[in-house]
Structure formats: structure tokens, C-alpha cells
């Protein structure tokens, strides 16, 4: 089953065309990785899946993006969309408040008020993000005191707190050390049971380690998209081959 279907998606920042005619199908409960050199459009594309690009002035999108068969373009309620399609960013960005309030922020935004319910959501989200044991004794302390890797798992927990269907991850480990990276990769693999995951990564090994599908982007085009092991072992396109064998990028 496909979670997202993209049909001829073009995207412009002012006069610059950042995405050119992207067609792809992103399967549910799988990990899909976007790879490609910097400026290839992979981050731009992931941000159009929950319309974070709306925040950038002069950004125009054409074509169709369907989530569970329904278009997310035009007058879709973006706040409801972003509740369904959560996001984890390149640099861990916990809010300057306590661990508890960080996780409770999302549910509170969507109307959960009862202390009891919030407590349950916070614990469940932190457990799902495999960080509960590390922070359960310091829920009331500032989230900014955590290590970088812990902060990023906290941000994953925060994204999970509103029970999304999809988790978008924009190079989530690029600011982290190898041990924290391994923990997050492990976590991502366990999460795919319940969530559809789209991950942008700079790191091809990471894509091979965790993803089921991989899309290779170059200069705003989707060059090749398919099962990860196939794409890496038998690339169809010469450009893909050049990239994965390290000839450029």
C-alpha cells in the first residue's frame, strides 16, 4: 500500500526550480531514503510532504501530492496535515522548556488538557523513542541540558506524541556522533512497524543499513527510485552508479 503518491511535482523558489517533475510512490510502513549531493532537492521534497515549504517566501508548488489518496495541496488544513505527518529536523531542536513540556507541547496544541492523559502520552512517546529510562528522573528539567543524541531522540518522541502516520526525518543524524547515530538508526528500524518513515540522508551507508526503498536525486530530478539493495547493487542509471561509487558528491 502506498502512503504518498507524487505526480509531476515541480517546485520553485522564486525563479529557481528546485524540483522537476517528481513522480514517486512512497510505501506505507517502510523506510524510504532520499539520497543525493547537496542542493539536489531531497530536503526540499521531504519538506513539501508536510508543507513546511509554505514557510519559505516565494515558494511555489505544482503537481499533485496525495496522502492516503487525498491531495494535500491548496486549502488543506496544514496544521492537521502536520499532525499526521510529523517531522524530525537536521539539528536537534528541543524547545527551551522542560522535557515534559517539550513532549506535551504537541498534544496540548491539539487540545489534550487532562494532566493524566498528558502524563501517559509523555511516557508512551518517550518509551517509543527509547529514551524514557534516560530522562524519567528529570522530566521537569530543561531539555537543553540533554546531550545531542538524547535531544534528537527527544525530538523524535515529540514528533511521536501527536500519533502521526508518517515520520519525516531530514538528515536526523548529521549533527551526531557515531554512537548516538547507531542508537537512532536502531530506533528508526523499530518504528517502521507503526509508522511510514521518509528519511533524507547524506550518508549512503545509512541508507543501505536502514531503508527499504531509496530515491537518488540530482539537480532537482529523481534519477532513480527502487528497492534499496537493488539500487545500490545494480543501479540502472549511470549517474546513480557514479554517485554511489563515490565518483562525485
Amino acid at each position, binding site marked *: 500500500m502506498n502512503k504518498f503518491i507524487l505526480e509531476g511535482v515541480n517546485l520553485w523558489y522564486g525563479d529557481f526550480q528546485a524540483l522537476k517533475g517528481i513522480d514517486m510512490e512512497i510505501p506505507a510502513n517502510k523506510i524510504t531514503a532520499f539520497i543525493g549531493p547537496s542542493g539536489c532537492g531531497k530536503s526540499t521534497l521531504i519538506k513539501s510532504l*508536510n508543507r*513546511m515549504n509554505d*514557510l519559505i*517566501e516565494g515558494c511555489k508548488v505544482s503537481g499533485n501530492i496525495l496522502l492516503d489518496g487525498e491531495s494535500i495541496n491548496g486549502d488543506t488544513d*496544514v*496544521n*492537521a*496535515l*502536520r*499532525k499526521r505527518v*510529523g*517531522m524530525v*529536523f537536521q*539539528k536537534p*531542536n*528541543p*524547545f*527551551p*522548556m522542560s522535557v515534559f513540556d517539550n513532549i506535551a*507541547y*504537541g498534544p496540548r*496544541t*491539539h487540545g489534550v488538557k487532562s494532566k493524566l492523559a498528558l502524563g501517559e502520552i509523555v511516557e508512551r512517546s518517550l518509551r517509543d523513542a527509547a529514551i524514557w529510562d534516560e530522562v524519567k528522573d528529570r522530566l521537569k528539567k530543561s531539555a537543553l541540558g540533554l546531550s545531542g543524541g538524547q535531544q534528537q531522540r527527544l*525530538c523524535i518522541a*515529540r*514528533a511521536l*506524541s*501527536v500519533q502521526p502516520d508518517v515520520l519525516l526525518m531530514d538528515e536526523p543524524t548529521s549533527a551526531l556522533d557515531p554512537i548516538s547515530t547507531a542508537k537512532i538508526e536502531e530506533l528508526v528500524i523499530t518504528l517502521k512497524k507503526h509508522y511510514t518513515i521518509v528519511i533524507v540522508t547524506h550518508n549512503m551507508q545509512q541508507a543501505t543499513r536502514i531503508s527499504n526503498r531509496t530515491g537518488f536525486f540530482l539537480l532537482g530530478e529523481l534519477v532513480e527510485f527502487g528497492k534499496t539493495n537493488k539500487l545500490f547493487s545494480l543501479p540502472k542509471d549511470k549517474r546513480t552508479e557514479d554517485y554511489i561509487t563515490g565518483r562525485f558528491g
Partner: protein
Amino acid sequence: MKRRKPRDLVLFLLTWVCVGVTALVLLTVVGYILFNGVPYIRPSLFAWEYTAQNKSLMPALVGTLMIVGLALALAVPLGVFSAIYLVEYARRGSRFVKVVRLTTETLAGIPSIVYGLFGFIFFGVFLGWGLSLMSGSFTVSIMILPLIMRTTEESLKSVPDTYREGSFGLGAGRLRTVARIVLPAAIPGILAGIILATGRIVGETAAIIFTLGNVARMPNHLFDTGRTLSAHMYALANEGTHAGEAHATAAVLLLVVIILNAVSSKIARIIKAN
């Protein structure tokens, strides 16, 4: 010390001399006022009643607090909301934003006597508020509006965009993002701006005497006249009969300003440290 060519030496010494002059100016003004004024600060200076014999500064102090309170109550929400619009809502380079910026700069450049004149004509005469707390606080609030706006804008801009992204990414709307995430993070900077603005109000005279008036008594209601510390200082200096009280009042005024300055820069330092 390394050897300098004669011209370099002259320039080098000139910079030291000029900075020395600047420091000397500050030390002389502050030193003179405090040295001569502090010995005259006596309990009688803070007597509740102002009389011809005892030029108590208490009514002026109370008047100052009232004007500061009212003016901040008007200008802070207005200034903070404007800044929120400019930073968080408006599209960059929109015509409205340009107009707002231009007018804010204009407000910042208008001398206080012109504010006094305007407040007198508009609030005092046209709206019929006369010389009153209302006229005074409205006039002064316009005067400090640009300061509040600018400091708030700066502190909103210094809140990292990643916070906003995080909040939007969870499906929060713009208002919630601003109210719950951005504004709390910007509060220290806004506070520093409010304290600076308080300093300006306390130091203001020309705009006060034609709007609040300069009568040495406690204002009883919003449309009552009174005076502030600076206006009191001005009156004492003009009367020229109570040198001791004048010295002491100048010292009190200066101390208030020094304290406000210190608090504001302390907050600024805390922000920098974080």
C-alpha cells in the same frame, strides 16, 4: 612598548586623550551631582506633603511611577504586537512594512519638545484632557513606542528559526507558535527594552511639562495634573532658591537612571551568555 613614528604616536595619543575626555565628562557629571547631592538626601525630602518650605520630591516620585506605569501599559502591548506582526507575520519587503518602518524611524527622531507640543495640542486641547496623567502618559507612550518596537523586533529575530520549525512541524498554528515558543524565548530582550524605555520616561521633561503639567502634588485621578521627578528637577533649578533640595533631587534622578541602566545591561549580558 613598540616604537611608533611621530605621526602614529600623535594619532595614538589622540585616541587616548579623546576617550579620556569622554570618561572625564561622565565622571565629572556623575561625580559632581552625586557628591553634592547625596549629602542632602534626607528623610524630609521624601515627606508625603510638598510645601513651600520643604520641597519634598515624593509627589514627583509618585507621579513618575504613575506616568511610567500608564505609559508602559499603553506602549508595551502596542509595541510588542507591532514587532510580532513585523517579524512573524508580515512578508518581507511588503509596502505596509516599509511604511511602518519609516514612521517608526520618524517617531524615534522627533525631539521631545515636539512631542510636548503635539500632546498639548492633541490630548490636552483637542481631546480636552487638559494637563493630566492621561495626556502625559499617552504622549510619552508614543515617544517610547519605537524603542519598544525595535528591541522587541531584535529579540524576536534572535530566536532561532529551528524553534519555529519544531512548533509548526507539530501542527501548531502561527499564533500558538508565537505565543508559546517564540515570545517566551524573547522575553529577556523585551524586558531590557522596557527598562530602557522606563529610563527615557523618567528622564523626560519637555514632553511632560505641557501634558502632565508641573504641579507639585499627587494626582488623584487619571485626569488630574501632577509632575514627574525630571519636571520637579526643572522647577527647582528654575526657582533657584533651594540649592540643597535641587542637588539632592538631581542625585536621586541620576541614581534611578544609573540603576535602570545597570539592570538593563545586566539583562543584556545574561542574554549574550545564553
